[in-house]
């Protein structure tokens, strides 16, 4: 029996990679003595020592910059943002230094930046953001977001071994809500760049990722129960590079595409997905491509406000119905 939570899967992934490769190290605010604001690195300082589990000053740009420098010399840093919202402070380092190094001068930067993202825990405007769209637009970066416990582990281990910078977005709403038996023996590695189908269905396809996978699954079940229509649910897992085969395949199979993300609407990833579908699978489309996303506002704090803000199974069901009926 090895039933673990999503957050524990993250901890295991880091732990195993630290064990496997002496080049791997972890740095971030309070990751050492305290074991991280969400206890992701609990016990690591004791096991791996202060050289490899490094408490940092509150200097996001320098933390990432320093990780880049170490990575250039073959180290494999994992940077923790205490909350992913703080990644904006390292925006220049990430998009201009890390992302462009290989293209400019052939220098690979093997670097993972990870941190708690997303809403649903009443964290307010600065502890709830989804940052994938900012970085999905930057060539040279990879972005992953696990929706399951297994992928939480498997994507992180793959990210650490990836030769390029990977932004690993963990959804804090799932931290302790998701549990899964990961077995004991097998090494879990989720390939970067590949989506996963979480539910079969021929009538329409919902493309989504992160916490919204579970919202979409709930909506799909209700759609099946209440309307007898079957929605495929695709968990993108990797947000950059996108898995075109899975995306376009779903469009071809179902002709009806519903895009769902927790991030705000305008300029969100759903736009890119819609464009790819309309560009390359237009002839298979039987209906408009619909989006269910958060509205274009900061993430509000108070529960009724945040509930109104976040995409819900109701909203997804509603859109799925319109699509199925089109």
């Amino acid at each position, binding site marked *: 029996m090895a039933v673990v939570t999503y957050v524990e899967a993250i901890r295991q992934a880091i732990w195993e990679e630290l064990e496997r490769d002496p080049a791997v190290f972890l740095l971030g605010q309070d990751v050492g003595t305290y074991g991280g604001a969400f206890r992701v690195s609990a016990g690591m300082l004791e096991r791996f020592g202060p050289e490899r589990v490094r*408490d940092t000053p509150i200097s996001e740009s320098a933390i990432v910059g320093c990780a880049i420098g170490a990575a250039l010399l073959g180290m494999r840093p994992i940077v923790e943002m205490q909350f992913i919202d703080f990644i904006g402070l390292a925006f220049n380092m990430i998009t201009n230094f890390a992302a462009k190094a290989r293209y400019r001068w052939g220098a690979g930067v093997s670097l993972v930046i990870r941190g708690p993202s997303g809403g649903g825990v009443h964290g*307010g*405007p600065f502890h709830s953001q989804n940052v994938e769209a900012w970085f999905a637009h930057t060539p040279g970066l990879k972005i992953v977001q696990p929706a399951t416990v297994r992928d939480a582990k498997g994507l992180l281990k793959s990210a650490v071994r990836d030769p390029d910078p990977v932004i690993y977005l963990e959804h804090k709403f799932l931290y302790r809500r998701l549990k899964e038996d990961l077995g004991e023996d097998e090494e879990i590695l989720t390939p970067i760049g590949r989506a996963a189908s979480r539910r079969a269905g021929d009538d329409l396809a919902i493309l989504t990722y992160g916490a919204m996978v579970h919202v979409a699954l709930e909506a799909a079940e209700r759609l099946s129960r209440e309307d007898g229509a079957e929605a495929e649910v695709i968990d993108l897992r990797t947000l950059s590079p996108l898995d075109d085969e899975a995306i376009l395949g779903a469009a071809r199979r179902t002709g009806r595409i519903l895009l769902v993300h927790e991030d705000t609407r305008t300029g969100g990833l759903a736009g890119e997905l819609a464009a790819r579908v309309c560009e390359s699978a237009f002839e298979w489309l039987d209906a408009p491509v619909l989006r269910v996303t958060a509205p274009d506002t900061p993430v509000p*704090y*108070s529960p009724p*406000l945040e509930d*109104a803000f976040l995409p819900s199974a109701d909203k997804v069901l509603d859109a799925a119905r319109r699509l199925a009926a089109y």
Partner: protein
Amino acid sequence: MDAPPDLLRHTTARLSEKQLLELYRFMLMNRLVEDRLGKLYRQGKIVGGLYSSFGQEATSVGSAYALRPGDKIGPMIRNLGSLLVKGIRPREIFCQYMARAAGPTFGRDVNLHFGDLQRDCVAPISMLGALIPVLAGMALAAKMRGEDHVALTWIGDGGTSTGDFHEGLNLAAAWKLPFILVVENNGYAYSTPTGMQMANSRIVDRAQGYGVRGDRVDGNDVIAVYHATARAVHRARRGEGPTLIEAVTFRMRGHAEHDDAGYVPLELVEYWRARDPIARLRRYLVVNGFASEQQLDAMTEPIRAELEADAEFALSSPFPDAALARGGVVAGDGDPRGAARLAQGSSGWLS
């Protein structure tokens, strides 16, 4: 008042008895508001984390008290005391911490993340350091208009490592802005001791590099904090530029209520407990004949009663309607807050 040896000492208090008692009252109120918040937290009424300035009341209150109306402040999460000095009412804070519609952000933002320019307060963002350039900009606006207002903000020892600390303070210095930065060196940034964040923990030593005046002050001595700030304000108003004040103090609780601060050595807590800023001012007032123990004791009850009423008000006030989630992102997009404010009428936070 026993201060660690190398701290700046106030010699004669130029504060009147009334002012001294007011300082005492603000610190007491600061602590009692936080006590009440703690109780609400344990009752599960706070939405999100609860942050405390227990033990640091003197830095917030003493510095804010040296300001005049029109002087702008950018309070951080542990500067509740400064908000009280600026006229923010406890019920606003209770509503805000409980995510109620009657709070100053209508439930849109968390804890002390609210502002009111009428009362000179800027809402912080979570990202440490950001207030420093922003308050410098407010000082710039005052300077450009020929007003003699100053702008003041606080930063923790941890927050001094941000790029914004450096860029903001340097800009304020280069432009000789009427700006004051109070660094609350309270020994820790979350779990990380100051000595792990920087090679030289005497933060005042940074002042010279920026070409600004630096003062190091016992942050648990409200009179010393007041005087250091008052001097800085005086210099700022005369066009002599910014001051960096390092207030040496201690965070007596965990980073937030969820944190038991098991990483803090007990001796350190004991050392600082003996230097509690409220107890120290109390002793000073009594020893110097400004007030009797009884007089000071008598201050607590009325405050408690007021806070009880405010907490009740907040507890019985509703969560915001979902409609308040939208609008007011940009001007003219149908901000629902105007109407909500009217509907709240005299029981709303603006009353």
